[in-house]
């Protein structure tokens, strides 16, 4: 399949002035600023085929936003190459951005004091959308994102969820080929999140829009993306399908046991028994139930079951699926090496 996005060895350095605390520090910074070069993005390469939804994840400060900002033409890369839709974002920026849509979840691109409808009519002119196309498009976006109920309200009166839907619609008005979504579900409640995910999915399916999605919410990733790229400290640490991630990193299992007798709970002590660290096992108990999450590379599934049965009487037992969140949490914590 043809690649929509092609990124090679992308790098971005920032100069940062380190200031010591207090009045003394400020005076010192005045005469001899202590500069440090920070590698925000340190040689990242990846490709995205046309029509894919790529999950782009990593811990805070990993450089996700910096990458997105370089791909959208906002930031100049220090070195490296990115080609999107056959164009280099920084080269002919005005031409390039006609084909992309961008949503930054933390900020809005809507005009705060105007009725939402007005924002779209201004964007229509900015992106030169013809009248008939505009009508058609608004009808489609209306259907997908349900804008009708608040399209005449001033943007400042919208709820966060409405605003986000409105922002996504604003980014899609000109039918972009690539859609960049930076934290599109941040701060939203479960129902609204669900809504937005469905909309993204629908747009991707119906229009073949390529989507790059950064998020902290891993259920966004599990529900929307087949493939993820994970970065940490400016470097790529994983690139592949979610299934591979589960397979490669962490064979984490979760068992939930329900005891006949709550008083027997104290008999269970997995940690001492298998001498495992906090990273490899977590035990949570509530009344007569206990849930054990463990690294199956360190201790066998059978061992855990046998040990539990030998100590207590069980009412019920459940085996839970591998949880991507745990894998990622562990990866973030341990970095690339482990």
């Amino acid at each position, binding site marked *: 399949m043809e690649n929509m996005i092609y990124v090679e060895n992308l790098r971005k350095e920032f100069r940062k002035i380190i200031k010591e605390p207090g009045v003394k520090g400020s005076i010192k910074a*005045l005469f001899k600023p202590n500069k440090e070069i920070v590698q925000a993005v340190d040689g990242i390469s990846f490709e995205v085929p046309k029509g894919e939804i790529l999950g782009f994840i990593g811990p805070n400060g990993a450089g996700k936003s910096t990458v997105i900002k370089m791909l959208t033409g906002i930031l100049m890369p220090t070195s490296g190459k990115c080609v999107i839709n056959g164009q280099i974002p920084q080269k002919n920026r005005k031409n390039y951005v006609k084909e992309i849509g961008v949503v930054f979840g933390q900020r809005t691109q809507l005009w705060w004091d105007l009725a939402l409808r007005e924002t779209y009519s201004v964007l229509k002119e900015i992106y030169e959308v013809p009248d008939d196309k505009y009508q058609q498009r608004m009808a489609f976006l209306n259907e997908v994102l349900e804008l009708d109920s608040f399209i005449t309200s001033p943007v400042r009166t919208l709820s966060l969820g409405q605003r986000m839907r409105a922002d996504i619609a604003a980014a899609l008005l000109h039918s972009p080929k690539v859609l960049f979504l930076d934290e599109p579900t941040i701060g939203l409640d479960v129902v609204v999140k669900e809504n937005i995910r469905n909309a993204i999915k629908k747009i991707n399916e119906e229009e073949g829009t390529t989507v790059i999605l950064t998020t902290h919410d891993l259920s966004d990733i599990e529900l929307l993306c087949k493939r993820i790229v994970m970065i940490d400290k400016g470097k790529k640490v994983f690139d592949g399908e979610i299934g591979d991630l589960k397979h490669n990193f962490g064979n984490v299992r979760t068992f939930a046991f329900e005891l006949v007798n709550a008083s027997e709970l104290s008999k269970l002590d997995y940690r001492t028994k298998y001498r495992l660290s906090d990273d490899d096992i977590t035990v949570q108990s509530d009344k007569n139930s206990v849930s054990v999450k463990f690294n199956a590379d360190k201790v066998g599934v059978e061992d855990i079951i046998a040990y539990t049965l030998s100590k207590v009487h069980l009412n019920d037992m459940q085996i839970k699926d591998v949880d991507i969140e745990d894998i990622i949490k562990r990866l973030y914590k341990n970095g690339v090496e482990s």
Partner: protein
Amino acid sequence: MSPVKRFFRTYKPFTRAGMQELVAYRANFVCFFIGEIMSAFIMYFVWKAVFLSSDSDTFMGFTMEDMTVYLFIAFLTGYMTYSDGAFSVGEEIIDGSIAMRMIRPCSFEMCFLFKELGNRIVSIAIIFVPMVLGVEAYRYAVTVMIRFDPLCFLFYVLSTFIAYMISFYFNVIYGFMAFFFKNLWGTTLIKETLVGFLSGATIPLAFLPAGLAAVLNVLPFASLAYTPVMIYMGMYSIGEIFAYMGLQVFWLLVMMGLSKLVWNSAVKHLSIQGG
């Protein structure tokens, strides 16, 4: 611990924060200051042209030297007594973060006051002292006499301090009013222009028609700039100094009382709105 000591201990961190803030944003501060003092220099040149174009050595009783001292000391006094706690109060009322201040075990306006005082301490070192020295050096260069009067200067400092306190409470009141007007820029422009004019900071009150000048002299605004500047210049006798400073104290008490009233009604308003 004595209550006084405890009082200062509570608010000392605010003063320190005020000092640090000014130092941290020193570049902004310097740029802002240069932009503001420009108007005093323009006035200086205008007056120089006025005296050059005039046959007489005095203009309505002021010599060029008097005028120059007036201009720069009035600017300095206006600068030192400027208070913008109002802006923060207004913003905090609008965004509701004022509630955070009400749950803290310290007086709301005292926090602002002590923070601004910290700011002022740095300003004394880097603005006030150099400007007074500059004005006195100018006076010396023009008249070849040391015209600096320590007693007047002492009263000036005291009077400026009272003027600052009046300004502070006046602006607290204004800040509470911000609750009602949302455009702080427009109303602040009106307020500052009017205060600049009524306080004699733009034009000496003595130049205005006698009736108007007499009225403005007893209004609180004269206490903000005109009174301290006239004291500095030695234009007032000891008797007048005490009379005008007494008037300053009177206005300070009025402003404090008013700010209390406004604060109480604002709190009521806040609790009705649910913060």
